């Protein structure tokens, strides 16, 4: 029997009307249905923020983690049972700010998790402060005189740290986003999906209209396995131009594939070790 969208449907979302989260939530569910998963077969790890509140709206094994800490927690789940698909649902403040260090190291470890970032370039749940992806000069409650820092480019950041799958989607194009998320979950290794998303309540600059004028789908002939071309493509967001699609993908052994102790079985399935004779020789 195939799973249905409604199998994954939990509580009614509390997002603001018109929020980009609706489109993303819908794309995640559709991707899971189209990949023929059921709620008992996947794990979703959530950060804290408006996006993290999806924990109550999506039926699945889940862990609503701390702000910034969803990635290492997802890595731990994967280490214990690498057969479980693990997706990480986070926001830009969560993943690029508070948890930025974890993002870098997850990429270079090629940990087989899918990081889906709701990037609305503002802190929504805490009512509108600047985020790491806000543009320089952005005026917010925490930067009333305008932001002094340049914005982070999450795409080039993870590309240079060894990420094996980097994509960008748009909350306003659910069907295209669904395809990207499906590809990200199916990818073996670390995947980042940076999703451009308006915040209708607290970001009056980066609106739907703003993005409609600046997004474009990657050409069908775009080659995804050339890192240098990917870096150039990814750099376009520095000029507020947003290519959508898979920007880079490469096959490389995942962290758990490289762990010799997990060659045959998952960590949870392994037999208990009991031959302590092998260990105590060095103490005699």
């Amino acid at each position, binding site marked *: 029997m195939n799973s249905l969208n409604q199998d994954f449907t939990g509580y009614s979302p509390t997002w603001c009307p018109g929020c980009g989260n609706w489109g993303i939530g819908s794309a995640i569910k559709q991707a899971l249905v189209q990949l023929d998963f059921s709620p*008992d077969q996947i*794990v979703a790890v959530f950060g804290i923020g408006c996006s993290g509140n999806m924990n109550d709206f999506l039926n699945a094994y*889940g862990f609503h983690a701390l702000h910034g*800490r969803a990635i290492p927690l997802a890595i731990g789940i994967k*280490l*214990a049972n690498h*057969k479980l698909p693990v997706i990480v649902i986070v926001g830009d403040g969560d993943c690029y700010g508070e948890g930025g260090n974890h993002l870098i*190291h997850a990429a270079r470890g090629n940990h087989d998790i899918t990081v889906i970032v709701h990037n609305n370039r503002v802190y929504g749940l805490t009512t509108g402060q600047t985020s790491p992806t806000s543009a320089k000069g952005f005026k917010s409650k925490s930067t009333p005189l305008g932001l002094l820092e340049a914005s982070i480019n999450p795409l080039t950041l993870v590309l240079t740290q060894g990420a094996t799958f980097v994509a960008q989607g748009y909350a306003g194009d659910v069907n295209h986003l669904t395809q990207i998320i499906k590809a990200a979950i199916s990818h073996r290794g670390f995947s980042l999906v940076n999703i451009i998303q308006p915040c209708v309540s607290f970001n009056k600059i980066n609106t739907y209209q703003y993005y409609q004028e600046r997004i474009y789908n990657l050409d069908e002939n775009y080659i995804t396995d050339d890192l240098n071309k990917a870096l150039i493509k990814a750099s376009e967001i520095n000029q507020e131009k947003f290519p959508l699609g898979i920007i880079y993908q490469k096959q490389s052994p995942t962290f758990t594939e490289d762990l010799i102790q997990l060659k045959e079985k998952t960590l*949870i399935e392994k037999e208990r070790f009991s031959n302590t004779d092998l260990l105590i020789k060095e*103490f005699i």
Partner: protein
Amino acid sequence: MVDFTIKIGGEAGFGIMTTGLFFSKIASRLGYQILDYVEYPSLVRGGHNAYEIRVSDTEVIALKKEIDLLVCLNKETLEKHKDRLTPESLVIYDRDEFDFQDNFQKIAVPFKKILTDFNGPAVMKNTIALGASLAIFGGKIEILLDLIKAQFEKKGDQIVKFNQQFAIAGYDEVKKNYPSFIKNFLTERQERKEQLVITGNDAFSLGAVVADCRLYAAYPMTPSSSVLHTLALWQDKTGMVVRHAEDEISVINTAIGASFAGVRSAVGTSGGGFALMVESLSLVGITETSLVVFIAQRPGPATGMPTWTEQGDLLFAAFSGHGEFPKIVLAPGDQKEMIELTLKAFNLADIYQTPVIILSDMYLSEGHRSVERDWFEEIAAKYKINRGKISINSKLKSQNSKRQLKTKNFLRYKITEDGISEKILPGTLGYFYQANSYEHLEDGHTTEDLAERVKQVNKRNRKIGAYLSQDFQLPNFYGDKNAEVIFVSWGSTKGVVLEAQEQLRKKGIKTGFYHFNHLYPLNQKRVGPLFRVKRRYILVENNSWGQLGKILAMEVGVRIKEKILRYDGRPVAVEEIVNKI
């Protein structure tokens, strides 16, 4: 009766640690028991290193004041440690480097000349000294030659022989020039049992393996790092996954994720690293995840004195984490207790689905003691894994069972009498649930409902009561119940207090001693009565606040006025306690 102390000192970076451990192992192989202690500064080269070993034919539980043989690889060693020498003490030194007028027994060994003769690097001084020391105590050279062979075998026969010649030279020097100083201390004991020479960190590592811990995460931090090294080295044999993550926050969250997915998990660190983990410890509390946290304390605050010892983080551990949630704090007194409590900690973490903190310190974590191999093997064989209400036999996706028609929301946080709820592993067919950092309903969904909040708080709090009635242990009592003087301490101060008690007994003074292993929470009803009788209670702690005293005052209402507190980075000494009485 054999009971002597040897101390080897020299410049950091010249192999003092290896030499000291060799001596401990030699004594242990010959059937003697040892306790050793290292002193080193927080740098890789330069500065003063020292390695002290007390050897006896009975159990060694503490260091003693007098040094019987001081091996000086440089002049500084003599200057730093001569206050602990007596006129009978022997001093090995090189007359070509320095000389002294003090009234100690001089054993001049020409390190420099031997190095020149055999064209050896300065680090070989250690090997010469080891040979000379072995000769002084009447040990046979063969056992040292064997150890050297084992150490360098991989590098080929020539390297083995090259190293061995320095040991032989030192050995022969003493045999030839100082025959009258040779003592028959290290003769092979006939009725000897095979012994392990292990540190507290080794003991934790062994305990974690026997307890079936499958994931250990850590970020290097003295004095906990050797657990990371040891468990990482064993990975290919044990199958454990050891992750050296990017920071301590990642460390603890990795372990939380792994534990959520069903494997026994632990993290290790010292106070500063634990400080970074504390927000996530609170996450462990509310999500009711099982986790063992190993903390090897060192003097703080902040970077403090990284390579020295202190028991300064008891209050920090007991009250770590924002919000109210149950946790269990244990502290072993020695290597054997470390193995026992580590085994217990993994069961407690699973039974109560809560963090269990094991407190060690540099003195226990990095010092070696002898533990009989039979004892270890018996305790390992006897150990029973108890995973409480965690259902590990649940059908996982990988078993390719047929997909359920409809998945149900499992009641992960179901209200129960003892506060502990059943847990199934993610991937179990037919169900789903979330572990939630927010306050939640029985099914894991977020709630801000006041009644549901109170239900969950009470549920979590009931686990404290369940622990206190089922698994909390009163302090161990040593000595005389009717004694006027009763010592009170915890963790690694156990040995020195016991030794002080023995010395006081010989002077005709009877004492008693409560040693706490189960430190927090305390069972007020059972601990309170222990202090009801009017006695002279004396707190002994390796910190400046008397932290166990504060916990006793807070939790039990007992106030201990007399205190022996040491906080200069060194372990409490036996004579400090004896002199106080």
